[in-house]
């Protein structure tokens, strides 16, 4: 039996600028993904009726930003709520348990993106660990705008148990 997990990220435009605002007025029907978005919430569920909906998949106050540039680049970082600073402020010397926990609570990658219908495909170029993602280097997200300054990105269902030995 495989459980499938969907994750929905809610993002809001970070610090909308005058210039962005003005140009948006002309294109109100076609909100643009270009810009920087702040993570608001992460929902996850495995049940098709969302009976097990978790509205705080990364905790109540996750942090995160995703940036899409006009020339096709993207970069994202998401961190769980309530991460603790390392007791030793050193990426290498901090205790292994703390580093492992910190590793488990960050999602990040950078690369390029392409828009296709209502989906955006992230083509990862840099990730924390090579081959970390079992789904490969392309990440597909269903994009849903709510107005011009809020967007949700839905992952495809991924099995929580599909990670095999490399």
């Amino acid at each position, binding site marked *: 039996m495989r459980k499938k997990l969907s994750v929905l990220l809610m993002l809001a435009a970070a610090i909308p600028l005058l210039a962005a605002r003005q140009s948006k007025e002309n294109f109100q029907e076609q909100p643009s993904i270009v810009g920087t978005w*702040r993570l608001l919430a992460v929902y996850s569920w495995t049940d*098709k009726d969302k009976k097990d909906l978790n509205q705080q998949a990364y905790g109540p106050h996750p942090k995160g930003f995703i940036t899409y540039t006009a020339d096709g680049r993207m970069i994202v970082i998401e961190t769980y709520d309530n991460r603790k600073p390392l007791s030793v402020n050193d*990426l290498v010397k901090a205790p292994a348990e703390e580093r492992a926990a910190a590793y488990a609570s960050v999602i990040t990658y950078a690369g390029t993106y392409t828009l296709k219908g209502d989906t955006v495909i992230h083509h990862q170029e840099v990730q924390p660990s090579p081959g970390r993602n079992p789904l490969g280097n392309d990440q597909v997200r269903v994009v849903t705008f709510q107005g011009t300054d809020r967007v949700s990105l839905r992952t495809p269902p991924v099995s929580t148990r599909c990670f095999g030995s490399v």
Partner: protein
Amino acid sequence: MSSSGVFLECRMAANPRRPPVLTALAMMLAAMLLHAEIGTAQTQKPSLVGTWRLVSVTAKLDRGGVMDDAYGPHPHGLLTYTANGRVAGLEAHDGRKPLSSGDRESAPLEERAEAFSQFLSYAGSYKVAGSKLTHHIEASSLENDVNTSFIHKFRFQGPDRLILTTPPLVRNGVRQVQVKTWERVK
């Protein structure tokens, strides 16, 4: 078997309401500043705005000495500055191993710990003043850096090469500054 759907409802986290007069004043001021900036220096200096790929990292140690290839001979990294003052970067060492099994939560502890030591990811805002470039970190793989400002020195080599010098930091117990060379992604 199961499938998925969309669930949409969330609270607005940004944009506290301001009196319209203040907003109008702020917009006028912003417009004037934008105008002034376009009118002056912008043409002769290369711009940070865009995406940069990491070429090399050199560590200058406090105790003396230089460590070339502090991230290995072929480091990985991408750094993006936007025109409206946002920055995000992801830097990783050369020669990292894939996790032997599991994912970021379930891989063996030692492997996760090692993997964590070999990359840094951050996002926030930035400001330029002369040769100083300040990153204000709002999210980071290194939680200690969150809500902290880092003043880098920066210079360009031609329009497409950027050299950033970090403020002092401690890596593997050694106090150092890191000089990072970036090349513009075209």
